[in-house]
Structure formats: structure tokens, C-alpha cells
């Protein structure tokens, strides 16, 4: 047990938790915006994957991580555009279109990657790190939590911003109404379709950003299927958070920590199947649901298209 408390173990655990948790956080926040507005983005995984690919390619060719993040966000938005056009505008089934986005993104990104790189997987240079002043000097915590890509700090700011947006802005309340009683929002003179479209594009951007971070900063390479279920965890986080961004962050930290735990344990020389640790967060969440999940936690209009005058 002594090995568990060494500095290198704790640093790699904390650092890994942030690195693994950030894509989940970004995707979860994105999904939360959509869900508030009554849109269920089962295609979140696909949006992340497209973002991971476009983000990687942009950084690979330009060497700029910021351009990579932007391209990742744009890639995610391009996948979200399908949801916007088919599900929000035309009212097609959100779950079916979502699954097809994920399947299509898996196929298309591996196809494009194969055409460009064949079977080689080029690695990017290490992503630049910003050490926060003062905080970065704290032993263990400094290296683990406060020496990361600037995107990490921006995302934490985003959590606070979103909390404020949801609670006290016109747009935030419109989102909430679009998910709860779209007809009332329509009656109040706000365009439901436009509100939901905005929400979905935000989701696409954040999910794509998360994917780009995952490929460029977390892994440093792009491999097909790199997101491997991160989008699904994002959906789970958003649904569990019941509309509170802070809860998404806590959930992402929990999942990130359990993902990082396996690598950290290997650093500490303890051999345990990764699967055991990866089960933990899901087991905890299911236990919480069984014990306390006594009421529905999703907006009533979730997943249903809004057609004016129809009940």
C-alpha cells in the first residue's frame, strides 16, 4: 500500500483524471444544453469522433493546438447540423438519426484516416501546458491539477458561465421552456425551432471540442474509434446531472478518476484488470439510481419534435 501514496502515483492519478475527464465534461455539458431544450443527442459519440478527427488533422497540418480545437468544434457542429436539419426542422426520430450519426462518424473517420495515413498513426508534439501562478507551486496538486492545457481552465469557467446562463438569462430560460412546455414558449413568442437549433449547435461544438482535446492532448494521436464510449458516458452524465452543470463536472471527475486509476495503478506496479476499476463508476451510479432514483429526471418534451398546434 505504501506505493499508493508516493508523489508520482498521486500526480499521475490527478493529472490523468483531469485529462480523461475533460472530454466527458465538455460532451456532458453539450448534451445538457440539448436535453434542457428537449433534444436527445444519441449521436453525441459521433460528434465527438468527428471533432477528434477534424481537430487532429488541423493540428497535424498546422501545428497549432488552438486551430485544432476550433476545427474540432466545427467538426462536431457539422455532425450536429444533421440533427438540426432532420430532427428539429423535420421531426424525424432523434434516436434513430443519433445512432446513424454515430455509426456514420465511426465509418467515415476511419475511412478518411485510412486514406490519408494508411496504417500509420502519426503522433503530435506534446500540447503546450499553462502552469497557473501560485497554485502550480503546490506540491502534488500543482502538477496534477494546475499544469494543463488552457482549454481545461476555460472549461471550468464555462461550467460557471453555464450555471449562470441556465439560471438567470433569457436564453437559459427559453431552453428550459423548450424542453418542458414548448407550446408555452411558442405562445410567448419565442421560436422553439430556433431555440432548439441553437442548443444542438452548442452541443455539436462542445462535443467536437471534447473529441479534439481527447485526440490532440489526451492521446496525441488519432486512431479510429478513439472515443470508445466517451459520448455515451457524456449522455449518462448529462441525464444524471438533472440540468446542473456543476453536477456534470463532479460526474466527469469521478469517471475521469476511475479511468486514470488503472494507469496510475500500473505506475505503482499493481496489476489489476482495468475492467474492475472501470466498472466502479457505473456500479456506483446504478446503486444511487436504485436507492434514490425515485422520480423522472428528464424534461417532459425530451425527444419529441415540436409541431405548432399539435398535441
Amino acid at each position, binding site marked *: 500500500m505504501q506505493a499508493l501514496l508516493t508523489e508520482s502515483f498521486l500526480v499521475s492519478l490527478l493529472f490523468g483524471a483531469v485529462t480523461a475527464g475533460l472530454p466527458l465534461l465538455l460532451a456532458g455539458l453539450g448534451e445538457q444544453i440539448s436535453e434542457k431544450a428537449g433534444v*436527445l443527442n*444519441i449521436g453525441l459519440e459521433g460528434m465527438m469522433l468527428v471533432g477528434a478527427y477534424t481537430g487532429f488533422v488541423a493540428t497535424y497540418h498546422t501545428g497549432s493546438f488552438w486551430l485544432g480545437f476550433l476545427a474540432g468544434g466545427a467538426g462536431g457542429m457539422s455532425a450536429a447540423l*444533421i440533427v438540426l436539419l*432532420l430532427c428539429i426542422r*423535420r*421531426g*424525424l*426520430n432523434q*434516436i*434513430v*438519426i443519433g*445512432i*446513424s*450519426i*454515430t*455509426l*456514420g*462518424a*465511426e*465509418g*467515415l473517420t*476511419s*475511412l*478518411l484516416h*485510412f*486514406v490519408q495515413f494508411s496504417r500509420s498513426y502519426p503522433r503530435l508534439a506534446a500540447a503546450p501546458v499553462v502552469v497557473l501562478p501560485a497554485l502550480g507551486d503546490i506540491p502534488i496538486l500543482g502538477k496534477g491539477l494546475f499544469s494543463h492545457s488552457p482549454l481545461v481552465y476555460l472549461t471550468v469557467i464555462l461550467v460557471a458561465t453555464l450555471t449562470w446562463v441556465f439560471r438567470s438569462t433569457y436564453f437559459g430560460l427559453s431552453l428550459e421552456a423548450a424542453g418542458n412546455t414548448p407550446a408555452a414558449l411558442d405562445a410567448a413568442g419565442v421560436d422553439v425551432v430556433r431555440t432548439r437549433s441553437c442548443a444542438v449547435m452548442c452541443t455539436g461544438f462542445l462535443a467536437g471540442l471534447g473529441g479534439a482535446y481527447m485526440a490532440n492532448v489526451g492521446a496525441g494521436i488519432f486512431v*479510429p474509434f478513439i472515443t470508445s*464510449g466517451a459520448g*455515451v*458516458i457524456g*449522455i*449518462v452524465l448529462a*441525464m*444524471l446531472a438533472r440540468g446542473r452543470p456543476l453536477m456534470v463536472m463532479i460526474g466527469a471527475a469521478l469517471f475521469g478518476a476511475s479511468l486514470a486509476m488503472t494507469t496510475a495503478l500500473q505506475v505503482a506496479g499493481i496489476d489489476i*484488470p482495468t*475492467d*474492475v476499476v*472501470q*466498472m466502479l463508476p*457505473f*456500479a456506483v*451510479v*446504478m446503486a444511487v*439510481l*436504485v436507492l434514490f*432514483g*425515485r*422520480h*423522472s*429526471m*428528464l424534461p417532459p418534451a425530451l425527444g419529441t419534435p415540436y409541431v405548432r398546434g399539435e398535441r
Partner: protein
Amino acid sequence: MTDGSTFAGFQATLLRVLVPVALALIVGGLILLVLGKDPVGYYGYVLERSLLRWGGAQETLTRMAPLLLIAAGLIVAFRAGIWNLGGDGQFLLAAVASAALAPVFIGILPRGLTLVACMLVGSLVGALWSVIPAVLKARYGVNEIITTLMMSFLGTSLANVLIKLVLRDPDTTVPQTRSLPVDDRLPRLFGTTIHGGLVLAVLTVIVVHLMMTRTAFGLKLQVLGANRAAAVHAGFRVERLILAAFALSAALIGLAGAVEVLGVWGTVRADWNPALGLLVVPLVFLARFNGFAVIGFTLFFSALMVGGESAARRVGVPQHYVLVLVALLLLFLGIVEYLDQSRRKSGTP
């Protein structure tokens, strides 16, 4: 209804299916063309490899068995308005359970009994893995998408843990369960490489289709799927119906896992996950929850998978390209259906 209108209806349905398939193949071909590959050569190769060659055709038919059983499970759930998206966990745990028991049973039971017992165990394990989402949905209305997805993650990890820590065959280097000898697996059909699971799967899909459309139980599930409040007002025991639909759906998916192990692999390796649970969802939608149509789409998809895997080695198009085709197919199906609906709406005064 006269014969003429039935025929017209059939024609319209056929058109609604064929147009998306054609559009998906064309747009998919254009993508290949843009990437500098030869679409005609690719499609030709896939068709020849998976259907026209006897060996390939047998592979295609064998591959259909688990897909059909999963589709049967999804038809039950979807018609009852239940989103069972946790197929992977149910499939894998059932596969592991039957793979673990088969070599033990074969020592004490005759072959036929062993196979039946293992399939029953597989179905039971699949059903058990859906109990928590089912109860949460029936009792407390907790959204089953999230719970089945989580149980699926848990199930795939648990399957690996079981293989690596508990059921591991000490004689192999790669962690896997003890394997069932080839002679003790599901019987092959008439000297082909196709195993009997295919017959079971086809029959199951048809029985499930008839059950959902022709029996009181099936119709109750359909009412539940259309409108839960209506089912409550009709006096159905909605909670029980939800539990039953969930259990049946997951049991069929579990059966798929058992059949795949007993018919093809004889063992489960650690980290093996064909991830068919979500892949079959589009097929079931394309077939509009119709069991007979599912058989056709499964054949189409199975051929694409078998041909696509081989094309990856021969023609230089990665096998995941098949996923692009499926996604395109779904998109076009949605669009065609939408256009069809709005045409009808504007047609009526």
C-alpha cells in the same frame, strides 16, 4: 380492400425501402470515388465474395443468426416503446455464461441437452441483466436509455473480469474460457458450415413477429408502446407488461450470445465484443419492426459485413466503410419517409 390496392400498397412499401437503399449505395459510391477508389469494383467484389461464392454465402448466412435473434429482441422492446440499448452487455454476459457452462455440461449431459441447457442459461442471464432497468422504468419511470446503456458498460466489463479472473482456461496464453470441442457445438446443416442456430433464429423472428401482431399479449405491448396512459386506462397491468417486455427482449439478445458461442466460437476471449447491440437498431428501424422485413435487411447487412471485411484486405477500402453505408441508409430512409408523409398530408384536403 381489393387486390389492386394491396398490390399498390406493397409496391409503395417496396419503393420506400428500395429508394433509400439505392440512394445510400449511390452516395456511398460517390464517397469512394472522391477518395480515389473504384465504387463499381468495390460493390462487385462485395457482392461476389459474400453472396455469389458458396463459401462466402455460407459465411453470410452463419453471420445472420445472432443478428436475427438480437433483432427479434429489439422488435419486442421497440414495439412496446422500450429503448433497450443495452444489448451488448446482455449479449456478452450470456455468451460468457454459456461458454463457461458448456464444457462442464458436456461431461455429464448428452450433447443435445447440453446445447439446450446452455441456450436457456444464456437467455436467463440476458433477462436478468435487464431486471434493474426494467424495475426502475416500471416503478419509478427512470429513463431506460441511460440505465440500459450503463448496464451495458457494466456487463461488458463484468464479462471481461469473469473471463480474466474466474473462468480463465489455464492452458491458454490469451485469457479465454475453456473451449467447447468443435464436434459438440451446434450441429451443421446438411454438410455446410452453417450451424443450426440460423434455423432457430429465423423461426424465432417469425414467432416474435406473429406474437407481437397476432396475440393479445403482443397487442397489449403495442398499446403500451403507442401510449402508456391508454394502456393504464385500458386496465392493463402496465408495470408487469414493462417487466415482461424487457425480460423477453433481453432474453432473446442473450440467446443470440449463446448461439454465437455454441455455434461458431466455442469459447469467449477476453475483450471480445462484436458490439452488435447498436448495429442492429438501424436494421430493425429500416424494417419498421416487421419480422419478415428484418430477415431481408439482416441478409443485406450480413453480406455487407462479410464482403466488406474481405474487401478491406483485397480492394483497400477499410471494413468500417460498411458503417457509412448503414448510416446513409438510415438517413435516406428517414428523409424518404418524411417526404412521403408530407406528400400525403398535402394530398388530403
